[in-house]
């Protein structure tokens, strides 16, 4: 396996794993965001 191919495999692995983790981030922060939006307490005036 050449260096280029190895590098690409590593980059692909990082990208896929990163996206998988990022989807979890999106889901968790999305749930939190719903709570933030629904919480009107202390809402600053426009």
């Amino acid at each position, binding site marked *: 396996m050449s260096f*280029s191919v190895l590098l690409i495999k590593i980059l692909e692995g*990082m990208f896929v794993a990163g996206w998988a*983790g990022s989807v*979890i981030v999106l889901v968790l922060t999305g749930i939190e965001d719903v709570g933030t939006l629904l919480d009107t307490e202390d809402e600053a005036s426009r």
Partner: protein
Amino acid sequence: MSSTSNAPTGSNRVRIVVATSVMLTFISYWRAAAIILNDLGSSAFYAGGIAEQAIGKSAPWFVLGVMLFAFAVRAVYVESCSMFVRGGVYRVVKEALGGTLAKLSVSALMFDYILTGPVSGVSAGQYIAGLINDTISIADAHGWIPSAIHHLFHGTPQVGVNGTAVVFAVAVTLYFWWENIKGIEESSEKALWVMQITTVMVVMLLGWSFFTLFKVGGHLPPFPTLANIHYSSESLGFWKHSSLPHTFAILGLIIGFGHSVLAMSGEESLAQVYRELAHPKLKNLKRTAIVIGIYSFVFTGLVSLLAVMLIPDDVRMKVYSDNLIAGLAMNMVGPQVLRLAFRAFVVVVGFLILSGAVNTAIVGSNGVLNRVSEDGVLADWFRRPHKKYGTTYRIINLIVGLQLFTIIVSWGNIYTLGEAYAFGVVWSFVFKTISMLVLRYRYKGERNWKVPPNLHIFGVEIPIGLASIAMVLLSTAIVNLFTKSVATVSGLIFSVVFFAIFSFSEKVNRRKHAHDAAQMQEQFQLQLAESVERETVGIRPGNVLVPVRDYNTLNHLKWVLEHTDTHEQDVVVMTARISQFGSAAYGLSSEQMFSDYEQTLFTRAVSVAESFGKKISLLVVPARDSWSAIAQTAHNLDSSGVVTGLSSKMTTAEQAFALGSAWEAIPEPKRQFVLQIVQPDGIVDTFRIGPHTPTMKNEDVVLLHRLWLNVTREPGLENIHHHDILTQALTRFARDYGAHEHEQIVKELLRHGTEAGPLPVRRIADQIPTVQPAPARPDRDDTSGDPEL
């Protein structure tokens, strides 16, 4: 609550309180979102076109993917802001990785900022040129172009799109260069207004697009598989002749993602506006992040998708690649004139938002360079303030010079600009996210929020979310190095040159600063304070505040010292350091707050005070605008009076109005004060700031008295007072003003204010029957019988 540094005591040096926090008018998350979207939203005008030019028709999926991923990147910014109030790239990287990498990261950020201007200006120019050409073509099709002109141009007259875009971009850049040299005061109001108009356009665009889809149908773009990604000759860069991008499916996705990543440029603004967010800050930051996330996903993401679905393939990239939204407008269902009118609206909105982004680029770059210069990594020569305007004009000149160079070298090629732009965007994110990862282990201070999820194994935290985001960004940035040859070469040259300048300047400055600091400390003793408090400045209530800016015009200070017994009343001389939105997150160290200019200014002020043998207190405050700074400082210091000189740009009445408006913005409870404006000829105009008894004209007093005489003749109203008449009159005025007679009242006031002079009080008074004075019965308000109010 103020926190002061431990300043040495027992010194003969003049003490100067340097407030280190910008006197901000805190803004709501809606306004904060508007400021960020002025930068982030502008990419919708060019990101989709650039991505499709690079990777083909499946580009909208990548743009949507980037906009989705942008939610995760925003989470990184929320965490950094929960740690540092000024949680931008430079601060975070410096904290985590040290000065060298911070300099490198800031070089990438500068590349990002400097390219924001050209890419936005050129894009706006492309939209304008496209509109001009299409309008001429339509006119020509209707036979409205005279044949002589037709012959002259050997066909339908057309403007050169790239040339026009360059001229426009240069003009806009020069305009904002001059505005920044003068030190424009930014307002969130303007940003909100631009976003309101943009929102109208977005709603119309989406509504009309979906209606068109409903009427004529459409197909989703091909899904992003290796077979559907069609690389252009330029999109593979150093891998142009390699088979790798055509072999590895996921590599194709990374390449596509990398070519679309510029769609999320502008995230850094989130860190910059954080300082200005109203309480509760973190919650409002999250709300801001949600608003900008949803807005940019809908605007940038959906517009890219709809463009591919609605604009026919044969014209989309050929005609509208550089003005995709205009192409969308022209391919809706409906009469041509309506579509052309909507396209003109798109161009106006594009002009507003993209021009705003040009300004943001200059302001942001100036802020970043000012911030790094605080640490002595930029020669003092750059920071020398403009003689008249006090702005860091040499830094602004450098930035604008680089931007103009970029515009001319690119010659309006938005694709090349966008590709290069992505280099700065992605690498500044990489530095930021990796630094945040490092800080998970190194930073022990307060942290109110963390990017989820986080696992704990044997007491060691594994930041899975943060690491995941870092991996996506790093893999994309590395692949971009291979596929964006122009960006890689230009970005690296730029970053290395800036890094070299920073490193060289730092060495030169280190020695010089030590000398200067020693010299300055012989004269002034700086006391840092988080906020302006009377106790910190060490003065009594009822003091006189004297704002100063130009050391050549200190006549008002002399006037104050002539008329004030400083044993009885303290005199505070203050100067405001104006900080713009982009620089609010930066530029707040004592060195920057108290530059050579302030040193000269206060040296002169102290000299004036010494000539009178009177004591003055000195204060520097950072602020968004000078009037807010004066009003807030007067409020915080319990000042009874503010004395200022005559502005070169405003009349005394305008100055009073500006200060009054700033005073109105201060939350209750607040103290009223007197404003005195000392003119060069020695005439002093006095105004009362805040609610106060107005000065009444004699005819008004006569009218009031006549009314009172008449009313008191009514049975049962014998005990009515003058103030009762006024109360009743004002109550009726308020009711009428708020209801059906609003327009009439406004008209009369306008007439009064512009042409007719005083309101026709005499005429009204004449209509009231004159009555014989009532038997001597002095009004209780007025023991003299003369209704002076």
